[in-house]
């Protein structure tokens, strides 16, 4: 049965798309998580709605590229706004994110009701936007994802040093004369692009997970940025494929949520068994360590013998 699955054209398309999604969001998500901007994915996904609807209203077309372009536009606009609010007022990142996200989404709803007056508009698109419909991926969608994904990854590779510095020591970067504002914005833009690409597959809420969870899992195993980013991409891609396979084999299992369950399971396992810092390792260490301490103290030893 597995064999028929693997040779099935739809499965190949969807799982490739899902794998790409997992890979790209794993990479971008690592940076977002390290910069404490994990929920940017959630925010940007919601902020994309008015863009999607506007694109439709303005062009009358439901062509994927056009809708995605609209999503990108408002996603970027939202990111700019969040940055502006955070930098120029005492309102913090989390509040700015929540405001932009919900207000833009509300704007999208308003536009949607406006679009309802147009005769051939169809609101099935909204459902797809929120929950994603991985199974509806077409080959051309996947090709688009490949192109955009390759673009994103090459930019990341190109400016690796700058992004790394940005994540770990923005103040140092500023002192070195590198414009942190610019790089910060660039990284946010790349993240927005990654989100928009994945949006039609995973939907809004689930896109958040794909941006965060693989990175959280990878963090437990790696101490270097490059290994964390790579492992995060691997976890993301693997969840994409396994999730798609599982949802094809088991009836009535929607693809997007299944992928999330996969990656969350990977994260959970990582949190527990990662050597050295995992929960199990630490509990073992602590009880052994403390027992040793108590014994040593009792035997009159000093702190180091």
């Amino acid at each position, binding site marked *: 049965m597995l064999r028929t699955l693997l040779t099935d054209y739809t499965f190949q398309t969807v799982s490739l798309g899902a794998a790409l999604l997992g890979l790209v969001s794993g990479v971008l998500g690592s940076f977002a998580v390290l910069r404490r901007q994990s929920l940017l994915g959630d925010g940007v996904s919601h902020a994309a709605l008015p863009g999607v609807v506007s694109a439709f209203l303005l062009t009358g077309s439901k062509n994927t590229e056009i809708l995605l372009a609209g999503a990108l536009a408002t996603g970027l606009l939202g990111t700019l706004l969040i940055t502006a609010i955070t930098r120029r007022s*005492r309102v*913090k990142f989390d509040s700015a994110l929540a405001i932009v996200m919900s207000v833009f989404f509300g704007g999208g709803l308003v536009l949607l009701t406006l679009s309802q007056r147009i005769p051939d508009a169809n609101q099935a698109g909204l459902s797809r936007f929120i929950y994603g419909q991985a199974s509806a991926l077409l080959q051309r969608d996947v090709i688009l994802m490949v192109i955009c994904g390759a673009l994103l990854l090459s930019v990341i590779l190109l400016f690796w040093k700058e992004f790394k510095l940005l994540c770990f020591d923005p103040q140092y970067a500023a002192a070195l004369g590198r414009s942190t504002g610019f790089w910060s914005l660039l990284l946010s833009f790349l993240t927005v692009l990654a989100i928009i690409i994945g949006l039609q597959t995973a939907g809004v809420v689930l896109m958040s997970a794909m941006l965060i969870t693989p990175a959280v899992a990878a963090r437990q195993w790696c101490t270097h940025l490059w290994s964390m980013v790579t492992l995060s991409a691997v976890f993301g891609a693997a969840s994409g494929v396994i999730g798609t396979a599982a949802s094809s084999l088991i009836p009535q299992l929607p693809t997007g949520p299944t992928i999330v369950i996969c990656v969350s399971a990977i994260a959970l396992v990582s949190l527990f068994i990662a050597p050295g810092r995992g929960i199990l390792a*630490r509990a073992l*260490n*602590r009880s*052994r*360590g*403390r027992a*040793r*301490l*108590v014994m040593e*103290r009792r035997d009159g030893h*000093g*702190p180091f013998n």
Partner: protein
Amino acid sequence: MTDFAVRVQDLTVAYDAQPVLWDIDLEIPRSSLVAIVGPNGAGKSTLLKAMLGLLKPVTGGVTFPAGLSKHDIGYIPQSEHVDWDFPTTALDVVLMGRYGHLGLVRRPKKADRALALSCLEKVGMADYRSRQIAGLSGGQQQRVFLARALCQEANIYFMDEPFKGVDTVTEKAIVALLQELKAAGKTVIVVHHDLQTVPDYFDWVALINMQLVDAGPVSEVFHDKNLSRTYRGTMPPLKGAV
């Protein structure tokens, strides 16, 4: 014997398996100005937090004299952990010191407010009572927290490096306050970073470097031999040490 303010017994504190404090036995006498000194990373702040019950030790514990309740203990931390953008004024922060005395649902009364204001006056910050705290300088913020601890009307005060990085005005204010507190019979326990001023400001000292090197009156215990044991030869010669 209730002549002590705090008693520490067999205290060992560790982060995971890494010991930070090892087997500390200490009895701090009442109504004294106590300095806790030691090199960086020696566990001084950890000792303070353990005494305040903010940490759980691996072994041993801290006892206070019977009858001491939670609002008999005042704490002035190193100021970084507070939310400076919080919408609250200097007077408001000081007033929060009274919350331990009020019951669960009760509101601060006029007497509480008057006390808060007088505490602000004592540290010279009465003019800033309506200022939002982010608009204050570092030294001024420190003084507000001092006032808050005073407002608690505690019996024992714990301070974590109150003199670090403050301006001369604030430093003088803190020293004057210490004297006042001692005259009123309170105990003040201070993690202190500046060895030069220990004999001037304090009458009792505990030397910590993960273990207790020595503890006692400054005149008896604060000498070169103990200091070099504490700092393991990393310390330049001190003037004024006994």
